[in-house]
């Protein structure tokens, strides 16, 4: 199915796309049909900066188990407590 469900969050950071590094402003997260991965549905991440155009995007398509493993790994890798943002 096409799920329609999409989470869009504002992010700060950088990503490397086809034209090199660029500043990221948003991430879309959705479980839906992949473009490339050999699965019916994948957890798709689009890290983007819309101000730079549609091609300013780092796309990832992960199987559901891989996505859960990644989510756990991200949380495990982050320091606790969350450090104060740098000035």
């Amino acid at each position, binding site marked *: *199915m*096409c*799920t*329609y*469900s*999409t*989470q*869009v969050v504002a992010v700060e950071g950088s990503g490397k796309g086809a034209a090199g590094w660029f500043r990221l402003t*948003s991430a*879309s997260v*959705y479980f*839906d*049909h992949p*473009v490339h991965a*050999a*699965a*019916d549905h994948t957890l798709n991440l*689009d890290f*983007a900066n*819309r101000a730079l*155009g*549609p*091609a300013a*995007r780092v*796309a990832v398509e992960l199987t559901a188990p891989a996505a859960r493993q990644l989510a756990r790994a991200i949380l495990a890798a982050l320091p606790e407590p969350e450090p104060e943002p740098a000035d």
Partner: protein
Amino acid sequence: MYDAVLAETITITGDGGDAVEAYLARPLDPGPRGGVVVIHHMPGYDAATKEITRRFAVLGFNACCPNLYHREAPGASPDDAAASARALGGVSDDRLVGDVAGAAAVLRGLTSANRKVGVIGYCSGGRQAFLAGCRLPLDAVVDCYGAFVATSTPPEAPFSRPAVIGLAAGLAGPVLGLFGAEDQHPSPAETAELERVLTELGTPHELHTYEGAGHAFFAVDRPSYRPEAAGDGWSRIADWFGRYLAA
């Protein structure tokens, strides 16, 4: 036998008078022949959908596929355009109907046209084909595993879409529906509800559910491809449009 076809990118006048990119494929003989509006799936106006559009020309129809994401990402690759459109909330139902109307107008205006036009869509496009058939004077509708026809998207979805089955009384053309028994969106229960409503309204229809197939069984480049269901489905589509779009 003269069997040349031409496929090319054109610009149509879409919803709100917007210039919208579209892919037109048509036999080069004089016709007359019917036209088919092809609605691409949510992953976009991609190579696979253009191939489907060309196939309709080979089957003897004029066919036009509007790029529903053209406004968000003109000139972008299909996957980038789909991602952009999705992040912005997707295509509204009203805009979809306007773009399909623009594509249908192009098809009716071709010198080889018999002025009959049908619509087909896959996946999210299946719902959109049904919606367009309810709101536009289209002569035949084909819904390929469109979810959220008889049910709405979950309310927690940020960009939710309503069920469109309530508009079914507006259908001008008969409906062919092709579904997979293993699909949960639309589920067999949802397609049964569609069957019930179309029967109650007296709308001519045929709904087929293929055993051993799930969602997207027509997609030759995906693991969901089911050649037997897809082969039979293509035969039914050609027959449906042949019957209802004939001069």
